[in-house]
């Protein structure tokens, strides 16, 4: 490891200028729970950390008049589950925030960092997908928006261009009679990386499903938005039969690999099981209850 420079800009413009100046060798530092580990392991090319935590836009959590929430990219996980309104509105994101690492990690780790790190197993990403989050990006050519399901492009790669950074995430106001849930499978009970993760969103009209979104983690090179599974649920009666049918689509869409964390067969099976469990949780939430948090 070599010595690394550190900068703490206070505006997005200054941060973007630093990124533009240093190119690939500058890295945004949010909580650092991925970045510092990676740079210690092989940080040959990293010359500059641009700390995002001093930029108000990146650490704010604001709700606008229409109920839309803007979540600063560097906001640490604990602030999410410490905010009752956020918990009520975005349960799947909170489910993810509560299981990333441990209490200590959650004091630093951000959802924005989790997303930018673009790990196939990043826990917050399926949750962001089912909540239809929009990424607000700033760069040398100004600002643009990216749908969160299009943000990750390959393991460890995202769609940010040179000099761009993630500023915040826009989370639409949750529709009435809706609920979400995220859960993952890990071999132990904490401090593990998801073998499979699953998030679900359901909106109901009585017993009937009017909208649904399903996303999976760790079963493809990037977190997977399983659009067909959600669409298949629309018009169905919320319950086991419909959930099983959607879970089958999720299982068939999953294209996992065999590795030390799980086999293809196991991950396919888990995609099926976890999709059902995520849907049950989302349903409980939509009906005003709290989902059980079983793995």
């Amino acid at each position, binding site marked *: 490891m070599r010595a690394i420079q550190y900068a703490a800009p206070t505006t997005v413009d200054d941060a973007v200028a630093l990124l533009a100046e240093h190119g690939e060798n500058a890295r945004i530092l949010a909580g650092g729970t991925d970045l510092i580990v990676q740079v210690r392991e092989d940080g040959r090319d990293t010359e500059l950390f641009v700390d995002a935590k001093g930029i108000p836009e990146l650490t704010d959590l604001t709700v606008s008049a229409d109920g839309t929430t803007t979540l600063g990219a560097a906001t640490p996980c604990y602030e999410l589950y410490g905010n009752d309104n956020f918990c009520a509105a975005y349960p799947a994101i909170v489910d993810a925030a509560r299981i990333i690492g441990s209490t200590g990690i959650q004091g630093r780790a951000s959802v924005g960092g989790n997303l930018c790190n673009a790990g196939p197993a990043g826990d917050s990403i399926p949750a962001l997908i089912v909540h239809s989050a929009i990424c607000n990006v700033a760069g040398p050519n100004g600002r643009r928006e990216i749908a969160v399901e299009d943000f990750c492009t390959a393991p460890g790669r995202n769609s940010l261009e040179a000099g761009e950074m993630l500023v915040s995430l826009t989370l639409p106001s949750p529709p009435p009679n809706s609920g979400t849930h995220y859960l993952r499978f890990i071999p132990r009970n904490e401090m*593990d990386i998801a073998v499979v993760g699953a998030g679900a969103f359901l909106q109901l009209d009585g017993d009937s499903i009017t909208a649904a979104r399903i996303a999976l983690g760790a079963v493809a090179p990037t977190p997977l938005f399983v659009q067909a599974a959600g669409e298949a649920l629309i018009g169905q009666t919320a319950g086991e039969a419909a959930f099983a049918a959607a879970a089958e689509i999720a299982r068939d869409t999953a294209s996992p690999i065999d590795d030390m964390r799980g086999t293809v067969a196991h991950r396919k099976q888990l995609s099926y099981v976890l999709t059902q469990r995520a849907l049950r949780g989302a349903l409980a939430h939509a009906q005003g209850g709290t989902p059980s948090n079983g793995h």
Partner: protein
Amino acid sequence: MAVDEKTYKVVGTQPVRHDGVDKVTGRAKYGVDASMPGMVWGKVLRSPHARARIKSIDTSRAETADGILAVTTGEDYPDTGPGDYMDERAIARNRVTYAGQAVAAVAAISAHEAEEALRLINVEYETLPPILDVQSAMAKDAPIILDELRTETSGSFGNSPTNIAKHIIHEEGDVEAGMAAADHVFERSYTTSMVHQGYIEPHNALAYWNPDGSLVVESSSQGHFGIRDDLSKVLDYPKSKIRVIPAEIGGGFGGKTTVYLEPLAAVLSRKSGRPVKMTMNRTEVLIGTGPASGAHTTICLGVTNAGEITAAKIELAFEAGGYPGSAVGAGCLCAIGPYGIKNFRIDGYDVIVNKPKSHAYRAPGAPQAEFGVDCLVDEICEALNMDPLEFRHLNATKQGDVRADGTKYHTIGNIETVEAAMATDHWKTSLGEGSATKRRGRGVGSGYWMNGGGKSSAVARLNEDGTVTLLEGSMDIGGTRTSTAMQLAETLGIAIDQVNPIVPDTDGIAFTGVTGGSRVTFATGWAAIEAAKDLQAQMVSGLSDYWDVSSDAIAVDQGAFSQNGTTITFQEAAAVLHDDGQEIVGKSTVEPSGAGNTFALHIADVEVDLETGKVDILRYTALQDAGTAIYPPYVEGQMEGGVAQGVGWALHEEYVYDEDGRMRNSSFLDYRMLTSLDIPMIETVIVEVPNPGHPYGVRGVGEVPLVPPLAAVANAISQAIGVRIRDLPASPHKVRAAIASSTQ
């Protein structure tokens, strides 16, 4: 639950531990805290290849890099001769036999510069396909990893090249007749993976040379004398010119009983003229130190309809790693330990594979060997419809039975442990219902470990205020400063807070063997008892001068000395003797045999998620015969630690390799040890059948609790899902695959 109701004053109590305050306040000095003026940093270059010839090593660019003070390669070390491969194990020469083996090392002003310089060393390898499991290594036309190796069988050597370093045979009775007398013969094969001890503190060493040519090394290890002797061998340097200073140790479990960084730091220090400090990171610990062997075992047992074992045939093949020396020998001695079997044959194979050279891990060899036996016993109980504890009671090893090596058992607490298990609330409470998608199972596992004796030294110095300074040679890894001091205090009849135990360096005390083999409380405790007796005898003789009476006229009771109606306390005696010009030092070196075998039995309740294959431990009880529990919470701590490591071994832990022989999970992210959320409160039951081979009845307690969990957990899972688990770890994907195969 003491069988022998002796009344002790100090033994069996729970005093404040002597090392406690320093540890909770962070003042305790661990190896990594060692520092010297002018100190520089060493780093190791490790082989990325599992099997290769080293064609050349070019260090010229590293030597001139920024901040670099010295570079070392295998050429700098003497040939230590055939046999134990101490030279190559310290640093490779001409070949590498596992990925992670040290190939070169550098010393630099900063650790970062040292790391950078490693990239400038150019090693030319000719790679060969690695052999990664014992079955491939033992196959007829297997490529040979160590060309010069010949199989050793009972002291004689074969004459053809082989990967089998050693073949051990133990035979007793008539196996064929025993099998013929059986109503049923069961045979199954089992595998366990290579696992690491997982101590939290990585290896470390600080080395420096004095102008008189003597070498000083500070490191945390399980025995500074062992480190000194290993260093003497690897460096071909006289022991008397090496001083090893022990540091507090952050866990070892057998893994810190040999040198890794120490010789490299010593040579780098000699070359640079500076004190050299080295520490490993976690990946280096996993790939570059000595884990426990993976094993393949085949177990064959004959039983009668009434459940009596008539004969056993056992084959154990252990991964030695890249050089000979697995724990298969101890595995052979332990395999059928809990069971008194008259007719048996046990074959053990020490097999070279391209993985790290295995090393000791808590009851080395026993968990792998006993796992298969206890799983098969469970299967037999199921087939015969017998209660697993009744079966163990019926077949339990007893006094007078013969161990694999012919040793006869003396007083042992095996049956008592089984009976204590039958009496537990756990055993008497039903398992409870699972649910539609979750099934429960209860499993039992037994454990046997022989325990060690060995050489230990202690010196007890009487201070003028009546306190006693206890110098003892054993590195304290499990609280043994206190448990040793307690035996001294008991013998002298003084309070434990009057004793100040210290572990001096290798120049400050006589030779003491390694802290391992569950031997310290037994052997070093015994040395403390003898030193106390020596001290007391000298006090009596000093007082006889002072009082001018014969020694026989002085009575000693509870630390007080009386003569002719006058009684003085221990403290008063100390003051009197000091004022009288007498300084009193008791000493002893002992090498006791009769360590006293120990037996354990564990009960595990699990719940298996049928949909995912995840296993949760619902309840866990560990029982074991401690002989006499000197400090009961320490015994419980050892039992709980063994359970946590053993359940991890059963459920998650394994070295995962790619086809090139590189470990893929060399971090604690993917090498999964249990966390605090993965195991419930462990219930412990200490059984006390005092060991007649020790003054206070001590048996070792530290190792046996690692043995039973493997089978207890596997048996519980098997019961829950109705499919036998014979391959550890029982990770979720394997358990789920087993469930899927049974429901198809």
